[in-house]
């Protein structure tokens, strides 16, 4: 965080006198200031002769107003919050009717959604179908982070032609071309490469320079767990820290830029041979919506149920058929 010295130019109250007062109490940066008890600091300022103590107190007040303006998000009231929700946080149809009706419309922008399921339960197929649906119907672009080389443009093409229905070849090709150019796929194989992609996305969304990234509605990470599980385990907390950081980064992107985020989580064997999601206890409290996917043996019929939702009851379930 910013050193106090760098604030001097803009705020003349924070002069060398105030800086050396702070330095005596171990405050060199705004971060140190945040960790310090201001009542104690003000009491020390009081001990100085009256002219300089007033000056020091002015400095503290100035610092507080800088912190209030720049270092946390502004307070909003319920009316503003609801207004932002209604205006900017739309529901994106998943393209699978049963999931849409289960979730009352689909995935909500601004939310982090998770699909957990065992291997070959159809997680990637759902991701591809949602991406195709959003790119076709919502006229928005999709950022697809692929961690296992499972992205298939043939499948996207198949889904798009199914959505747009029977049309003439030329027209269909045009639609497919448009949709394909709206889906940006990044192949990443470790968590730091994913951070690169996400940070780039964040800065381009902020500056709105890169035209290709404009109007991004959906971010897919398939699969998130395969990036995170290699760094978990062992006694250390670094892996968990990176996992939580990823969660907050995704939620921040979703909230600030009104994206729906969809991540997948594979299943591993737990106690007593029961399958459990690879990202477990500490991950549970991070996503808005958690769905569990499973597939019937030897068929294309999938079961999907709600593990957690911000307002729907958990345990509700639906069935749908995957396309051949």
């Amino acid at each position: 965080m910013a050193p106090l010295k760098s604030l001097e130019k803009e705020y003349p109250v924070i002069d060398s006198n105030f800086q050396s007062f702070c330095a005596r109490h171990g405050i060199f940066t705004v971060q140190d200031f945040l960790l310090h008890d201001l009542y104690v600091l003000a009491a020390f300022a009081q001990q100085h002769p009256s002219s300089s103590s007033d000056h020091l107190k002015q400095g503290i007040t100035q610092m507080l107003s800088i912190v209030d303006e720049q270092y946390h998000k502004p307070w909003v009231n319920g009316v503003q919050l609801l207004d932002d929700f209604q205006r900017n946080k739309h529901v994106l149809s998943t393209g699978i009717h049963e999931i849409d009706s289960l979730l009352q419309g689909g995935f909500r922008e601004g939310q982090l959604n998770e699909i957990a399921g065992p291997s070959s339960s159809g997680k990637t197929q759902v991701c591809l179908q949602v991406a195709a649906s959003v790119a076709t119907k919502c006229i928005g672009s999709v950022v697809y982070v692929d961690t296992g080389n499972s992205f298939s443009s043939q499948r996207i093409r198949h889904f798009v032609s199914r959505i747009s229905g029977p049309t003439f070849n030329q027209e269909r090709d045009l639609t497919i071309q448009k949709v394909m150019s709206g889906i940006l796929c990044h192949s990443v194989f470790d968590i730091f490469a994913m951070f690169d992609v996400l940070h780039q996305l964040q800065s381009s969304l902020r500056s709105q320079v890169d035209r290709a990234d404009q109007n991004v509605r959906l971010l897919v990470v398939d699969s998130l767990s395969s990036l995170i599980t290699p760094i978990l385990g062992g006694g250390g907390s670094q892996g968990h820290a990176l996992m939580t950081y990823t969660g907050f980064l995704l939620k921040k992107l979703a909230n600030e830029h009104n994206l729906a985020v969809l991540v997948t989580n594979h299943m591993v064997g737990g106690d007593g041979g029961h399958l459990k999601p690879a990202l477990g206890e500490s991950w549970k409290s991070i996503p808005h919506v958690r769905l569990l996917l499973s597939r019937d043996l030897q068929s294309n019929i999938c079961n999907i149920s709600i593990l957690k939702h911000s307002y729907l009851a958990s345990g509700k379930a639906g069935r749908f058929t995957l396309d051949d």
Partner: protein
Amino acid sequence: MELAGAGGGGRLAKEWIDGDESAREMLRRVLREESRHRFLPLPPPLDRVPARAGNVVELVGPSPSGKTHALMEAAIGCILPEEWQGVRFGGLGRLAMFIDLDCRLDVSLLADLLRARIARPRLSCDDDDDSLRQHELFGLCMRRFLYVSCFDSLQFLATLKTLHYQVQKQTEAQGVGVHLLMIDSIGAFYWMDRASTTLHVGVNNRKGLSLQQVLETVVQEIKNLMQVHPVLVIATKATIMADRHAENEVNRNRKRKSFSDTSVSRNLTSNKEQLLHREYMPYVWQDHMLHPLSGQRTATPANAHLQVKSPDWLQYMWFDRKFYTCLDFAVSADRVAFHGDQP
């Protein structure tokens, strides 16, 4: 009252008889203090929580167990007016502040819950007029709900640092005070803070950013705030760690008792769930919860893990009560069973 000489004594006695305030003033004062000491109206089973200003309550449970939902109910009880245009709503009519560390409050749910509460009593016999008035009341209540989200510990600290100023500003702007401060959830940055270690070379009194330091500062800031504005603090805490040791033990027990009937196995699951909750926050947070803040006399701090079973929105939750109590609120530390089949 000191006893002075004859002349002065007469005057003092007269002053004493005259009293300090008229009954009208006293009533006003008592009512004002009363509203501060009033319990926040909460739906059962949360109505057993000593939810009033000056207390700190922690809600503990796995995800999803309805903790955030419970906070929303608390917020609605706080922002609804006691009475509005002659209709009784039974709220406190004060401001509620929500610090969202999980960053996933669903405001549409809050709005729905609030609308349901407002729609229950009719405000007017004319349909159009009724909906107009409901809309007006809805806006009034929603403006009393104040929200901020934090994506890391430093944002959280910056929010707390300026909370006092924010409370004053909002109180002046809206004409009513803040009664409730919600933190959802206090352990959100646990892993990130645990992994962050900053080392400052050469400066002894400089504080590094660590889990312990962050929590100490958080506790200090809340204490500072509560000295000036005694609010009710409700913090939720997700159980982010499964206690492997306890889990194995319960599994062993279960195998041993596999022949037993369903009621035993139900108890076992509830035991398992209780054992799985392991405290992971630094002691400073617990200490803060258990010790009195300012000049309040305390009864024995009550600390009970309560498992609560549905009303439909609560699948199950633990309920951890650690709070300061005045002597007049003579709560005993015994276990309170909220549902029938708990032993």
